């Protein structure tokens, strides 16, 4: 069973034969996903670009070893995780602070550019961005990476454990702690008002 699409297979074959244009076409397909994963991990736009481009460079150099028994993205994600872990060990992020809403607006974020209209939705987006980024900052790098892989990437505990060289139980515990921390930081109440209790009970 082919796990990669035909066109993708063709692009990979050409990229393996030193065709950088074919590799760039592959990069264009997955660049956003890799960039966003990097951005949520290091919480800085410049570091996210550097880190994601480093992933692509590593992928280009290691493409000769790619076998079609797994999907290209799965293989690419493995390289991404390894790059993240290497940066985590070496603490090589140039910028320690996270990107603020102002910086994101300056860079032209689609959602936040609407701030000129000052609509309630835009204000909500700003507040949400700041609070979630701050909540993610409270997690340890390992917790953050495991949470992102589980929640954003939809990886199973076994897959994350295999990629990060630890047990599935460790991953499960880390994800659980990450969610608990986020809940506290985002001030999500878990108390149900009494009047809603009856309504909810009727709903279910």
């Amino acid at each position, binding site marked *: 069973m082919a796990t990669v699409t035909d066109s993708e297979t063709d692009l990979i074959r050409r990229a393996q034969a030193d065709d950088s244009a074919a590799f760039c076409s592959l990069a264009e397909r997955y660049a956003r996903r890799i960039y966003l994963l990097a951005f949520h991990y290091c919480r800085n736009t410049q570091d996210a670009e550097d880190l994601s481009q480093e992933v692509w460079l590593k992928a280009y150099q290691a493409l000769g070893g790619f076998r079609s028994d797994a999907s290209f993205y799965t293989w690419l994600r493995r390289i991404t995780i390894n790059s993240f872990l290497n940066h985590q060990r070496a603490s090589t992020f140039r910028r320690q602070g996270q990107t603020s809403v102002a910086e994101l607006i300056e860079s032209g974020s689609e959602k936040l550019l609407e701030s000129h209209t000052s609509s309630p939705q835009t204000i909500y987006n700003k507040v949400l961005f700041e609070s979630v980024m701050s909540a993610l900052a409270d997690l340890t790098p390992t917790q953050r990476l495991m949470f992102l892989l589980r929640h*954003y990437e939809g990886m199973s505990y076994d897959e994350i454990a295999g990629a990060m060289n630890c047990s599935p139980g460790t991953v499960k515990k880390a994800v659980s702690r990450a*969610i608990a921390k986020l809940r506290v930081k985002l001030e999500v109440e878990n108390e149900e008002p009494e009047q809603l209790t009856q309504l909810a009970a009727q709903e279910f």
Partner: protein
Amino acid sequence: MHKCKETTERITELLLDGADPRLSLSTELRECANCRAEFRALKETLQLTTRLIETATPPDNYWPGYHARLREKLHAAQQPRVEPGQYRGDRHPSWVSRFFSSSIRVPVPVGLALLLMLGVAFVFSKRVSTKPVIVHVPVEVPREVPVPVVQEKEKIVTQIVYRERRSKPSKATPVLPKNNEAVATLDGFKPAEEVKLTVIKGGAANEK
């Protein structure tokens, strides 16, 4: 039996998988207000973090620049690209280059110990070499020293002298004065009228 902790864990897993817990956990959620509250809080938390992706996504005009920069980096990295299998001998044909590029796996503690020993040896050698040590090397100077050789002269017997051996005088026999010597006599001795005798006790062993 209903356990809130287990239900909460299942709710979390279902939400992370993108499933709706209300379908598979409808009974638990209907009957337990605590689990219901947990469900709402978890759902809200994960929804908030998911919305961050939409908020943080760079605009479309960002990507051409991103890919241009990536192409430049790829072009720069294209020259030293290494194909798999190149390390199997074709790049290092000679045994000399293989010898110099070979490596040995050393456990970290052993490596650290070796490094420490090297460091200590280096520091020690530095410390020793900084102090100038003057070593006096004894120089052997050949010198003739006249040593007097004492030679015992041979005893030559020239005369034999015989000596008369005299026996020692015994205590019993009085020593007679030699000729021409004065002899003590009792001439002119007058005895006194009273004789004082002093008896010293304790002289004899049986005296009382």
